[in-house]
């Protein structure tokens, strides 16, 4: 057997391996070009996604649960009835029972109609409530998106500017991304039969506007900005500097680009 291993053969194999490694970037470029040609973000001509890096910040202490953001999102994006690109959750944490040795009682969460119509008064008597707060939710724009990772055809993808998008003309509607999203942000659109989710109002932000939910929020609980092009006295930079910021389900390592201030440990 050993007489078959010659220097020439070894060198040939090594050269083939090096050649293969060198060819990889070219192959990747080709693949990216094909994907670019097939998957569309619907951004206007002239918009360069490499020159932006979008980030959404949410201030839990500022959210009043009015639901205007949810309604604006549904109207702006034609979100089908019973599905949500953004929603608001209400957390009601009761006081611990006397002598229980606990720091808090029961945690109750609700989001009637996604919080679109606001919230009626909680059924828990005021004197029993330890604390209560609203948490706006939307696509977490993960840096390492589990949803784009599992898409079998690459119809959903991370744009260079941080948005995670779905090409509804390419999606096969298998639902794998919906299962893979840990935050429940995706749904199967009953009209297009494809995956749907928050796009950060891509049609607006690529034209210099803010997402509809940010635009309408009366309490400035939603702060949106471009990390690559900070404006003078940038609200996003101020938010990051002045708050302890956190992300949802950090242990999953998804690297969300939606950050929160004032997040309670009960929020998932």
């Amino acid at each position: 057997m050993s007489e078959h291993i010659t220097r020439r053969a070894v060198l040939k194999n090594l050269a083939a391996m090096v050649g293969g490694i060198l060819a990889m970037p070219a192959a990747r470029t080709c693949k990216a070009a094909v994907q670019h040609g097939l998957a569309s973000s619907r951004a206007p001509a002239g918009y360069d996604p490499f020159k932006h890096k979008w980030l959404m910040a949410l201030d839990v202490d500022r959210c009043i649960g009015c639901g205007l953001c949810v309604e604006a999102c549904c109207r702006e994006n034609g979100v089908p009835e019973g599905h949500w690109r953004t929603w608001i959750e209400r957390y009601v944490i009761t006081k611990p029972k006397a002598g229980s040795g606990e720091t808090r009682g029961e945690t109750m969460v609700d989001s009637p109609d996604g919080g679109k119509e606001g919230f009626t008064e909680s059924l828990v008597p005021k004197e029993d409530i330890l604390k209560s707060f609203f948490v706006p939710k939307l696509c977490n724009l993960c840096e390492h998106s589990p949803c784009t990772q599992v898409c079998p055809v690459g119809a959903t993808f991370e744009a260079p500017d941080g948005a995670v998008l779905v090409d509804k003309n390419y999606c096969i509607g298998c639902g794998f991304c919906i299962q893979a999203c840990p935050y429940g942000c995706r749904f199967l659109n009953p009209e297009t039969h494809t995956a749907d989710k928050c796009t950060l109002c891509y049609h607006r932000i690529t034209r210099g506007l803010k997402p509809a939910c940010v635009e309408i929020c009366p309490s400035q609980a939603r702060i949106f900005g471009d990390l690559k092009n900070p404006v003078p006295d940038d609200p996003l930079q101020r938010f990051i500097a002045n708050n302890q910021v956190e992300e949802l389900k950090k242990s999953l390592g998804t690297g969300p680009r939606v950050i929160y201030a004032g997040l309670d440990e009960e929020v998932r």
Partner: protein
Amino acid sequence: MNATILTNVVDALPQFEGYVYPNERTFHPLWSVLIVVYPYITGLVAGAFIMASLVRVFKVKALEPIYRLALLTALAFMLCATLPLLCHLGHPERCFEIMMTPHFSSPMAMFGFVYAWYLMAVLLLELWFDYRRDFVEWSKTETGLRGIIYRAFTLGVTDLSEPALRLDARMGRIISVVGIPSAFLLHGYVGFIFGSIKANPWWGNPLMPIIFILSAVVSGMALCVFAYMVLCWVRRITADMRCLDLMISFLFYAMVLDAAIEGLDWLHRLYSAEEGIEVLKSVASSKLFYTLLIGQACLGTLVPLLLLGTMQLIRKKVADLNRRRVYFSSTVLILIGVLAMRWNVVIGGQLFSKSLRGFMSYKMEFSGHEGWWLSVALIALPFIVLTVFIKFFLAQDLPTLENVVPGATPRTGSHPAQA
């Protein structure tokens, strides 16, 4: 009118308990019963092939009677494996995108390739090399449609010389050797589709592909035993007990391994008690009580293990007829148990919210595109295809077919368990 009332009553029943994310408040899970059927059928393919490989690769002579039957079973189920997926897709007409522009980081993207490889490079090739000699012989004697089919399947290669036949046998063996890891790959990847979803604590688990492979082997072997016994019963011949006993031995040991790994999975989950364990325990003990604890654990695993284990110990003392009865009922239980296992994995993972604060429920539709009827039809279809295959390729009246069910002797009987 009655239907409307019924719909209203069903809608009025509580669909959700606790808090579930608004997008999870759908009337049935995203992956419904069709996605239960899909891994079930794929698993049967992999298991039946492993059974056939025991003859070719491991040279288990006693199993030769079921070699062709096992391969044809694998092929019949393989041809139907994609149908549940296709029926489920939102855009089935775009399914070829999976192969044209695959996204390589997706476990699902590899499906097209693994499927094509397994079908074209393993199953069809192995069957062709195995059948080539018979196709040539049959094409000489058979006329009409059969004659045309056999002639076409020779693919024009009619050389029956000694070296040519030796090459057939050698190729068959090589393909079998390649086929074993391919079968594991085919079903391991199905397990990985679920195991890779870290968002869902019921699914995201490195043991998932292994559990899927082992349960596939168990179900496929059980299917081979089932098909062999039914075939013997239909043809009114007595089954080869040596072959049957050996198949059951392999099935029993595969089951022991499968049950051990599934037990280990639960032991690990309960012991590590990570976030969400309370939800999982609740799903297992209440929502999936009948399918998991009764269907999968008791009827599908414990009872057959006890029955087959007892048979391993006292085989010689039990009359053939009784043994066949035990074997037949055990395999039926195993087949139902593995179907329950697929249900528990697929549906169980969608009965609780990813917020880990609430539960959903599943009311399966009777008709409709994700309903009971379609799933029953999709499970029945491979059996119909298999019947056609048996008519054409395992027919008793074909001249050179001593190995249809060799060792089997003509008999009269009326029940599969008596076959």
